[in-house]
Every structure is written in structure tokens, then in C-alpha cells.
């Protein structure tokens, strides 16, 4: 039925200074109601100081099947890690 309220993904900033984190989803007719519903469902006990809502259908995701090539840690490129370089102790911490 097309009349079903669309699905929204909910993100909460737990405390000042932290990023918003995905906490779950819910159905709501529009963004304003999604925020109100998210407040009622996901922040009843001090869970956050800010809310983002995004329509689930607006999210694009990487394909799990391509996890390998996509997130190849490039272990052959060891120079990306600071430990690749030998800095003499006399120089101090760097």
C-alpha cells in the first residue's frame, strides 16, 4: 500500500563534541514527524542532544560482496603507516 508511512533512518549526537551515530529507524509521514517520533522512541533517557533523520531510500550503500577490493587495507603500502619511518630517539617524539 502506497499509503504506508515511509521509513527514516535516525542519527543521534550523544553529547556535544561527538558525531551523530545511527541508532535505528522508524516510519513517519514527513521529516518533522520523523524527528518528533525519534525523540519519543530513541531519546527518552538522555541519549542525545541532536537528531538527524534521513529517508532510508535516500541512502546509498557499498556492496557487501565487494568488501575485499573496496576496503583493501593496502598493506603493501606500508609507508602509509608512521612506523615505516625510523626516526632516531634523540629527535624526541614525533
Amino acid at each position, binding site marked *: 500500500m502506497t*499509503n*504506508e508511512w515511509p521509513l527514516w533512518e535516525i542519527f543521534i549526537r550523544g553529547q556535544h563534541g561527538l558525531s551523530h551515530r545511527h541508532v*535505528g*529507524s*522508524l*516510519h513517519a509521514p*514527513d521529516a518533522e514527524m520523523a524527528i518528533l517520533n525519534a525523540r519519543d522512541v530513541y531519546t527518552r533517557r538522555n541519549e542525545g542532544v541532536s537528531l538527524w533523520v534521513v529517508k532510508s531510500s535516500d541512502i546509498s550503500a557499498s556492496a557487501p560482496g565487494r568488501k575485499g577490493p573496496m576496503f583493501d587495507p593496502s598493506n603493501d603500502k606500508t609507508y602509509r603507516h608512521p612506523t615505516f619511518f625510523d626516526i632516531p630517539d634523540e629527535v624526541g617524539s614525533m
Partner: protein
Amino acid sequence: MYAQEVKSTGKGVKALEEMSAEERAFQERIDAGEKIEPKDWMPDGYRKTLVRQISQHGHSEVVGQLPEGNWITRAPTLERKSILLAKVQDEAGHGLYLYSAAETLGVSRADLIDDLLAGRAKYSSIFNYPTLNWADMGAVGWLVDGAAIVNQVALQRTSYGPYSRAMVRICKEESFHARQGYDIMMKMAGGTAAQKQMAQDALDRLWWPALMMFGPPDADSVHSAQSMAWKIKVMTNDEGRQKFVDQTIPQIEYLGLEVPDQDAVLDAESGHYRFTDPDWREFFEVLKGNGPCNVDRLRARNMAHDEGAWFREGLMAHAKKQQIAAE
């Protein structure tokens, strides 16, 4: 538990050698304790079993609001009323978390709710028992949520990521539920003789249905093996029941109430209580729809759904209008 009779594939568990390469890689991820996420490949049976279990669990949270909702308007004090209201509101949230987890498996919440309303879906047998007086609010929070906690704490380790995360969130809220219930029991058990008698009566009536919450004995639970192999289920029915009995009997004793089971004794050797099985015939009757409140519960759910339709549709119409105006 909140999902007491979840049909799985109905077949035995395959050995690793009998599996296709995909199935085998999947099983090995589960055995290694990895979480499965929505877009990952999964066997059809895994998906179907999960949808059944998570939706039954969700329906139980939603229908579970009714026995306690029954007493919100009649709570003895404003404080007790506010507490009960907050508890029941949490349960609505639990239903929502679970439906959301089920939706990540490609089903729609509207369809799941239709199944519930049409009587095609199951929910926990416990919510088909009546709540006759205020003492029942104590016994429900303490025993029913207490039993649910045993199960849900274990389910935090379930293999499906969204289900596991919903359990983590739910468990954070459950201990409030059990404690407010026990608090009511302490008040009543320490009150007048008549109040203490009410507390005992509530315990006597809810003890057996609470034991049934964990589902039929392991020996009779046909679908458990595959669910355990897939870590959709992480504790057997009998293990959960034993854990619940072991934690609850000392709590009964602290209240100064009688354990409703004459034969419940601590087995010194095993460190566990021995106890009498509930009446499994009654359990299966309740599951089939013949419990004291099955008809009432479904009627109440259908009424709420039908009477809320104008509101859901109105908000949707408003949202569409706003969207057109913005374009």
C-alpha cells in the same frame, strides 16, 4: 520466550561438508562469532526463521502493552501511574525496534501487522492471561519482564546484527521494568494481611505462565537445533527456564511469600532448583488461541488499528500536500 514456537526449516542441521560453498562460508562466519548484516548473503531458511522470530518478538512487545495498559487509569497513586505509563511506553518502543530489525530482512511492517491483526501471527502466550488487580502489575513487571530479561540478555549475542543491536537497546530499558514490578511486590508483601494475600495470589497465578514463556521443553522443541546452529537462538528453552527459576526463588523468599511449587527445592549437588513443569497442554491451547484473553487481545489491537487509521492517513495526506506545494 517472546517467540516460543518459531518454525525453522524443519530439516536437520547440515554438516559443513553437506553445505554449498556459500552456506559453508556463512556458517563459518557465524561460528567465528561474526555478525550478519542486512545486505550480506544468507540462506533462505535463515532469513525466514529470523523474520518469524523477530516479528513474533515484536508482536509480543506490542500486545504486551495491553495487560498493563489495563491498569494505567486505575493505578493507586499518581507516581505509580506515571511509572506504569513510562513502562508501557517503553514496550511500544521495543515493538518498534523489533519491527525495524525485521524490515531490514526485506519484509514490510504493514504486512507483519496485518498478519497479527488477522490472527495469522503468534505472540507470547503470557499476554493471553488477565491482569485482575493491582498486585498483578507487580507480578508482571517482576516475573514477566524478569523472564524476558533472561532471554533478551542472551539474545544480545544473536548472529543477526540489527536484532542483536535491538536487544542491546531493549536490555538497557528492561531492568527498570523488573525493578518497578518488584518494588510493587515489596510494598504489597510488606503491607496488610489482605495486601500480602493479593501479592501471593498474583504470584500463584503468574508463576506457571511465566515458566511457559521459555517455550516447550527442549526435547519437544523441533525447530531449535537449526536456530541454535545459526545463533538465531543462543540459549535453549530449558536453560532459560532454569536460570529464571534459580534467580526468582530467592526473590520470592525475600518477599516472605510462598513458592507456588511445593516440589521446588535447591539441589545441593547441582546448585540449581528442581521444579515442577507447567501444564504444557494449557500452553499449547493458549498458543492455539484458546487462552483466557486471546480474543480480547486481538479485538483490542484491531480496534486501536482501525480507530487510528484516520490519523495515519491524515498525516500522510498532509505530508503529500506539503511536498507538492514545495515542488
